[in-house]
């Protein structure tokens, strides 16, 4: 089968790739572009481990075709830190011990970042509902919620 030529933007960089029309964006990221930060926990849109941000919206990359990335702006976990400076959310996750195994962490961070871009001052309940599509089997979520709310607070402080 002929492969599709796709031109897109990932973490601010122009990227071109060839993909099978059946390949998901998650497969393209991981297997073609060697960006393995997004994880496959289910491949069916139920765990959020593969979460990326596409044109400002969070998306399960396992439910999005690679070919659909044409002309889009995609942000992944690999683009979250600025050089050697961690994003506030990343730093707060570390400080709050919000990861145990860490497999859910990339998806959780992208989802949390999208939350704070949409709502800089979420309540605990709003945060819990926003992150309800991101499964974490290790932490029981306490420390993740704490980290996100703490990051939101710091980000708000930085702006005011």
């Amino acid at each position, binding site marked *: 089968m002929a492969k599709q030529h796709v031109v897109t933007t990932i973490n601010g960089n122009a990227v071109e790739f060839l993909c*099978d029309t*059946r390949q998901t964006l998650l*497969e393209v990221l*991981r*297997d073609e572009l*060697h*960006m*393995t*930060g*997004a*994880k*496959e*926990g*289910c*491949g*069916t849109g*139920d*765990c959020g*481990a593969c979460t990326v941000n596409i044109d400002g919206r969070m998306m399960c990359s396992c439910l999005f075709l690679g070919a659909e990335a044409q002309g889009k702006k995609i942000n*992944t*976990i*690999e683009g*979250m*830190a600025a050089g050697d400076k*961690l994003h506030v959310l*990343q730093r707060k*996750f*570390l*400080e*709050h*011990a919000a*990861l*145990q*195994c*860490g*497999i*859910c*962490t*990339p998806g959780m*961070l992208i989802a949390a970042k999208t939350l704070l871009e949409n709502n800089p001052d979420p309540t605990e*309940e709003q*945060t*819990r*509902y926003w*992150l*309800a*599509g*991101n*499964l*974490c*089997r*290790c*932490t*029981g*979520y*306490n*420390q*993740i*919620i704490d980290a996100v709310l703490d990051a939101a607070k710091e980000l708000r402080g930085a702006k005011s």
Partner: protein
Amino acid sequence: MSAVVTEKKLKVVGTRPDRPDGVPKLTGTAQYGADYTLPGMLWGKILRSPHAHARIRKIDASKALKLPGVKGVITAADLPEQKFEYVGAERVAQNFWHMTRNILAREKVLYEGHALAAVAATTPAIAAEALKLIEVDYEILPHVIDVEDAMKPDAPLLFEDMITRGVEPPPTKPSNVSKRVEFKIGDADAAFATADEVVEMSFKTAAVHQGYIEPHACLARADADGQAEVWSSSQGHFVVRTMTVKMLGMKTGDLRCHAAEIGGAFGGKTVVYVEPVAVALSKKTGHPVKIMMSREDVFKATGPTSGASMTIKVGVMRDGTIVAAKGLFKYQAGAFPGSPVMNGCMCGFAPYDIANVNTIGYDVVCNRPKSVAYRAPGSPISAFAVESTLDMAAKKIGMDPIQFRLKNIAKIGTPTVWGPKHSHAGFAETLQALQKHPAYTAPLGKNQGRGVAVGYWFNGGGESSSTVNVNEDGTVVVATGSPDIGGSRASTAQMAAETLGIPYEAVRPIIADTNSVGYTQATGGSRVTFATGITVINACKKVTEEMCKRAAKMWKIEPENVIWEDGSARPAGKRAGEFPPLTFKEIASKRTATGGPVVASASINAEGQAPGFSAQFADVEVDPDTGAVKILRDVAAQDVGRAIHPSYCEGQIIGGVVQGIGCALNEEYIYDKNGHLENAGFLDYRMPVASDLPKIDAIVVEVPNPNHPYGVKGVAEANIVPPMAAIASAIHGATGKRLTDLPMSPPKVLAALDG
């Protein structure tokens, strides 16, 4: 072993530093099982049975092999036959004859999803296509899913020659009962007659999956000379090595296993599924081979824990004394023997001082995936039944459930049902900490209830190794053989820094591959911070002894007049005060002049672990219209011995509680009448999400273990034991209805309310 260090002297232990492996996990560069690749790599995929039970008449892969891009196919015929024998300690005995058949089926497939062939191809799509071209001729057989059905005399047999072990004289007829176990102290039957009240109840639990978010995955490469390498996500890369060489008839030293980062396991990654298959495919094709399971495969073909049927009887006096207890436990083993029923029989009444106890367990095979360890394996199941029954007994005599448990709690010297006496304190202290929580006496509203339960787990010791290398700038690398699931690199580095007297940041903990560090058992049984921790501390002590010798050389004095204190060598005895102290860093920088590299290793087969104990209460609200149960609050106290890194202790406690909540309210394997799993995905197998839960309240209790230099007790497991019964008792408090069948999902709660 040395006495426990007193708290005030500790500088690093008990603090909350950033974990050393954190940043790669936050930036997406950490490599988990599925993240490795090699040039020329092929993709392996596994053909799985669509039937719950069938004889394999023939497997024909000729069409698959002709598909362009397919490089090789293997079946059980490519693996050597194994001897039929149970090996290892009885509680965790293994039989390689069974193991090889679980990895690739031979005579029969025994559950839907049972692996029976594997292909390696140049792309995942071609590999998937090739699976469809493998023709299997099945003779479909009747199947059995439920444990009670499997025990019936006319049940379909998984193994036509299985004679129940543990029965004298042995039965003459085969059955699905692999084994019977019994434990006894005193005379329970006689003691019931003396009790003021007797409560007897029956319970059922569902099979639940560990639910780690990372599916099993590995990459393997094999050379023509017989050497091979594996990168995989497991709880023990030494276990992967042992089992893979056994399954493939290789020499142990020929297989080098690397511990990938591991995306959750909870007991489920203590066995091998894909590693021997990937190595065999790599040998056959001459290419590296990567295998990733799908989520559906994980549910259908990897180990859930057992579902069970149980009956509990307890006799109590009006003053609260439990005088007699009996438990009958029937656990599903899945397709091959080896449920944790023995643990269930041992742990159920272990928290209590009861003079007359009798527990009987049955290990029963049925057409489900082989059960595998899941966090305190076996204990949550029996605790659900025992703790629920005790709650009813306490209610019968009108006693507060914590008071009732305190009255009967086991202490140092209390005998266990399996023989030895309890040798550690901490149970009563943990219950008292729970009792003191202000929320315990907070008023409850309409449709709300509160339930209490406790949980026991043995915890593990066992074999571990580590090596400490001192660098010329005064930093050290600590290599252990323990895969890090929940922050053990942090606790390792803390214990090393504390022992050496150097900053936490100067310690780099790593997990070395199987050919670079001594043998180390799997990360399981809450053993790493205890057992591997002792090896790290002992290796660090050897380093400080050596550093003293180096300082003596630098000072040109007798080594016996140098001591290590506060991270520095100091002249002592008759030399006291002769020289200013030399720091770790200063001595490290003189490596070459003082005798070359400073390296120390330590290994152990650790004993003296202290058991885990958790006491919890849950507050729930039951919606009378829908039957939905909302967790309002969950307070979990646990004795951790000493918290090396309190945040990760709290994380373990909270994580365990939430898994328990999932097991209590939602999670279950659901089979249709054909023996097909109906909910093999995260949409229908519903694990707790953030919006289901309140903040869990973890109380870290510290009653140090005298057998660990810093007082550590394993912390990862006991926390999952109490929630099911605590929630059932809370629902009983809210509604007056006692649910005895897990999960307590809305339809069951509604049925109880209507009934």
